[in-house]
């Protein structure tokens, strides 16, 4: 029973995703509409009717009380989490006990993050975003929603099964020699060759990385590229997993294994399957939804219901078309969020993928648009705070500063194929208005600011969201060039691929008696290390397989959410004796030389604050900034360690283990990978 809904302020559904149970639940409340055949519109209508009162109440509360609902819990433990971003209201529902309130809030934030990565600064204009999320054309809408639904499902699947998405940090394959070789290969051979090719159509490869399932084998950024943030990298991994789902957990569980959990039985070792020789398998771009085993359709009614959601299936787009992604760029002159990039996701073998991120030729436009948007947003804020128009325009950056720049910008646009007449009109109107004064001046000016922002977002949309270029010469790395890149890396890794696939399942081993599991995270780099917790039959982890491993897994997952709750309230050390286990959690700061810094105050956040993590909202970046205030001129690093021990081990020993883990874990991997 799960659902996620995005709604506009007028209770118009901008996006919805439901699992089959929720779908059925809604349909059963509107029994009649289920039979008349047109699945999607009918379902959309019913879901919007059902939620409308809540949405309207929410908006009324904000308008009249300045406060609104953050969550509901019913007696049968259904949870509803609500969050409003600008004019979009997100509602996430769980009715099967699999997600807590925090998980739902996280899901909402992740959905918003994915929308930002996909639509960039268009998200800054509610009006445009509304049209973008809900295209008039029903076929187009179905295609978009299906893509978003699939991303959401991929994310949920990763969050439930992959430790790196549990703690929201990137996991690397631990093999220093191979990693170094690969990085060198990416730098000297691949990126250099791509960027010197004429077939790149003006694009420039900035980042290249190789993923083995969700783990990072090698990452290379070109010299003039800015750092790729962990948040963006995690979002990109979700996208690539959505395109080429790992089949790590698809293996059929062998019923015999459930009996042999005592550990005395013969241990089976992972034997990789022979790689498919059929290279055609890599050319499918669209996500293969069926391969994410999220649901098992037993009930024929459910099957039908789910099918009716996808009646408007459209042919997959050309696989060589890159995805447009909007990522944060940090340059000398500041931080620019949502700058356009192209993402090429090239499958090497099942489970191994090469990802290229390129800078597109027109990306400078995005920076200008952002600068202007920021100036108007600040002006609007000052006006809203009640500053007089004339005073407000003098704030930083002043409108006069950008005036000539904007004039030039509009002039340049006029020469291009971008439709900028409307922007020109609104800008002229704004310039006329700002000279005036008198009653109602502020209100008028605020409206003018809003108009300018909408127009700028509109220009941005035209530049980066609408497929440009002609059919004969699309702006992208040519298919031939993409194929060459793919082959090069395949040749390089051919001998390693089986090893890598195994390695990705048994990344590290532990030799502390009594220690059952640990996760260590370097929050400064957004990287994590943990023994595998794969629980399917074929992928035997350190814990063996079957119910016990499943149990430990559920303990680890709940431990992470528990410690986050404490961290949110300012607690950086937590130990718990729970049943037969002893859990520890530590968060600490070090300087660059490894000197342990004194524990500082950790801000206490409200229950409904943004989720603690790095994917949707980088809590740790904020935490580091907060902590660094008292450590000026020093590079501060932040680490986390979670451990699960058997409860019978003396606490002393447990703490010694933790200490050893904390000091040793990062040693072999200190070499710079990112």
């Amino acid at each position, binding site marked *: 029973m799960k659902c996620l809904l995005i709604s506009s302020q007028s209770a118009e559904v901008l996006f919805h995703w439901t699992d089959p149970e929720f779908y059925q639940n809604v349909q059963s409340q509107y029994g009649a509409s289920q039979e008349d055949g047109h699945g999607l519109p009918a379902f959309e209508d019913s879901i919007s009717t059902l939620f409308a009162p809540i949405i309207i109440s929410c908006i009324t509360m904000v308008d009249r009380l300045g406060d609104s*609902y953050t969550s509901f819990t019913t007696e049968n433990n259904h949870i509803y989490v609500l969050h409003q971003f600008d004019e979009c209201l997100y509602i996430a529902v769980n009715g099967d006990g699999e997600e807590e309130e925090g998980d739902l809030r996280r899901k909402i934030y992740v959905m918003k993050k994915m929308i930002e990565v996909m639509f960039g600064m268009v998200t800054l204009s509610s009006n445009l975003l509304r049209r973008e999320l809900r295209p008039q054309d029903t076929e187009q809408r179905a295609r978009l929603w299906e893509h978003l639904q699939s991303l959401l499902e991929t994310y949920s699947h990763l969050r439930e099964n992959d430790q790196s998405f549990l703690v929201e940090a990137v996991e690397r394959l631990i093999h220093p020699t191979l990693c170094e070789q690969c990085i060198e290969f990416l730098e000297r051979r691949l990126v250099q060759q791509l960027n010197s090719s004429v077939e790149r159509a003006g694009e420039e490869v900035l980042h290249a990385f190789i993923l083995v399932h969700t783990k990072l084998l090698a990452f290379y950024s070109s010299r003039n590229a800015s750092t790729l943030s962990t948040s963006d990298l995690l979002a990109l991994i979700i996208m690539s997993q959505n395109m080429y789902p790992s089949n790590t957990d698809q293996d059929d569980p062998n019923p015999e294994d459930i009996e042999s959990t005592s550990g005395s039985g013969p241990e089976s070792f992972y034997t990789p399957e022979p790689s498919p020789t059929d290279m055609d398998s890599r050319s499918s771009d669209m996500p293969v939804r069926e391969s994410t085993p999220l649901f098992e359709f037993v009930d024929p009614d459910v099957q039908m219901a789910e099918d009716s959601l996808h009646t408007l299936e459209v042919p997959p787009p050309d696989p060589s078309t890159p995805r447009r992604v909007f990522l944060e760029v940090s340059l000398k002159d500041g931080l620019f969020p949502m700058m356009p990039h192209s993402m090429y996701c090239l499958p090497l073998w099942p489970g191994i993928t090469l990802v290229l991120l390129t800078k597109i030729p027109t990306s400078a436009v995005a920076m200008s648009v952002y600068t202007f948007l920021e100036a108007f947003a600040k002006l609007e804020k000052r006006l809203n705070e009640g500053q007089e128009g004339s005073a407000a325009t003098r704030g930083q950056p002043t409108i006069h500063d950008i005036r000539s720049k904007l004039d030039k910008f509009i002039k340049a646009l006029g020469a291009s194929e971008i439709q900028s007449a409307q922007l020109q009109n609104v800008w002229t109107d704004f310039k006329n208005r700002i000279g005036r004064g008198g009653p109602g001046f502020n209100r008028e000016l605020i409206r003018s600011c809003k108009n300018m922002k909408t127009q700028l977002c509109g220009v941005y949309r035209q530049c980066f969201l609408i497929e440009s270029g002609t059919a004969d010469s699309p702006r992208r790395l040519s298919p031939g060039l993409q194929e060459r890149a793919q082959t090069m890396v395949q040749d390089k890794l051919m001998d390693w691929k089986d090893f890598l696939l195994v390695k990705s399942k048994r990344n590290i081993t532990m030799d502390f008696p009594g220690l059952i599991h640990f996760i260590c995270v370097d929050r400064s780099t957004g990287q994590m290390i943990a023994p595998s917790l794969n629980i399917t039959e074929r992928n035997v982890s350190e814990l063996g397989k079957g119910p016990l491993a499943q149990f430990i897994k559920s303990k680890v997952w709940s431990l992470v959410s528990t410690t986050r709750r404490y961290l949110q309230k300012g*607690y950086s050390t937590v130990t718990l004796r729970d049943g037969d286990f002893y859990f*520890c959690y*530590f968060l600490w700061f070090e300087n660059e030389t490894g000197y342990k810094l004194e524990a500082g105050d950790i801000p206490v956040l409200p229950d409904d604050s943004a989720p603690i993590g790095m994917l949707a909202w980088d809590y740790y970046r904020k935490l580091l900034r907060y902590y660094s205030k008292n450590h000026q001129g020093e590079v501060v690093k932040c680490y986390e360690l979670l451990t699960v021990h058997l409860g019978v081990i003396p*606490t002393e020993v447990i703490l010694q283990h933790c200490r050893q883990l904390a000091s040793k874990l990062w040693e072999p991997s200190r070499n710079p990978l990112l």
Partner: protein
Amino acid sequence: MKRFVLFLFVVVLLSMIMFVFEVPVFGVDSCVCFCQTPLDRQELLCGQLAGAGRCVSELSSSPVRILNLHRNRFAIRMEDDFFWALGCSVEVPTVSVCELLDQLINLFCFYNGSVRHSYQLNSQETLASRWAQYLSHLQSGSSELQHIFSGLKTIDSTNVDPLLLLKAALILQACQRCPLVLAGCILFRGRVVSTQMSPQLTMKVMVHESETYTKPQRPNGQSSSFGSAVSSTNVFLTPSELQYLQSTPVDKDFSSHSTPHRNTPLKKTRLSRTLSDTPSSTESSDPGSSQSPQKLLSPHLSESSVYSSDPSQSTPNPPPPQPLEPPLSNGKHSPEEESLEESYYHSFHSNGEGGSQIDNGGDSSAFGENSHLHGGGVDGACGEEFNFREAEESHDNKVSEEVSGRGCGRVQGHEVERPDPPRSDAFEHPGESPLIPMTLYLHRVKGLVLALLAHLRSVSPGVPGAPGPYIFAHFDCIQSTLTLCCCVCVCSQPVWSTGGAPERPFVRATSLLHSHFCNTETLQEAIIRSAGAAVYGTRSVAQETYFQQHGGSLRNSGIPNHQDSAFSLPGKARHRLLKHGVNLL
């Protein structure tokens, strides 16, 4: 006809701002509210919460239980066409506010019977003021920690002469020998000295005690006519509460008398005897009263012989099943005990007159604190005496541990044999369910109150903790009692509620840990540390204990280190709390 489908409470707990308001069906009638925020804000909130709540409960086919806003948290109860919302700050744990709302509703039903019925009989204003009363009682003088645990306040047994506790238990047992008396408790200034009732029921009874202190005249006019020292009122028990009371070992001997119906004939005879010299204002209040047990109880209770502590007077009834130790029951009476008897006699003999004098005297004092009934002199005496005990602490501790251990053991022994006491979360359908009318009888002597449902409990003054560099909170889940000790400051309740004090981090940690314990059955102990404080929490089936050590260097890097002082907390807690009679082993 005014018929309420919905009423809503919004209470800001921590800041003690309270406003109560009720919305009638379909908004036909006007809202009643007495509050500090504008009416339309409340109306809006009321309508929106109820509407959105209704919508969500339809979607999920289940009533809404919790509703969070950015700045407030609401416990919700939806039942039939009723809607309750109790709001508080978001810092109060969800479990606690839900429990508080249940308590509040149960309390209302205890004194008023079914909600629907009450709203048919009484005006909105009257009922609103009652809700307000119960609410303020539940919040009164309590610390933030009490909001978290919603426990009973008891006397600190380590600071009371164990003889007193034993006496109290004996008095209660003596009372219970009367077939009409179901159970009793003895209270002292809002604290429980001894009780035979479940904690939940005791809590309900205590409301009347404090209420009659503050307002000698009950709003519904049901209170009685025995003078201010003696009063009775109609109350309503849920079937499970009644069953629980009837199944006590003591009552088993008289099981034939313990159900209301069988009692009827007996009741009648006694009624005629005792009512002859007391005006019966109760008669007219309830049409079905001739059948109701409380009718029978109240006159019966007014007979001093039944619960007099004089052994000769109690002999007509067979002794309780537990053998009593002669030296204790016949031993020298403590001063409180004597004064109890003495004034009891006084009030009995002089009946209404003496009571009214006391009452008049009380009216002159500004606020209805308990003290006005027995005068400052007595107060002072009590205080001194307890202080004196404190000085002798080391000696007393041993004795008290020993004796109270035995005494409590016996009382708890009863409880073990009983069926599970009705928990507040046992949903009793406040709107409609059949409630069994009873009479609650109260007799007060110098701050001590004997409440019989019959029931008795005795109580002692605040918690003077031994000075020490630590804080702890110990919650006894069985008896629903909370022991607090903040040993750095000389502790009195208000310190806890100020919120700015060094206890603040402790309260926050305790609140988080308590929620965690409530939600995770397997969790046994936890240490959590922020930059300022490390708190240890541990729990078993019977108790939850939280401990924070002051002072000592908290300087650390946060990196795992077994020499870190935070990890020695469990040992320290075990050692320190032993002194307070809390055994963590």
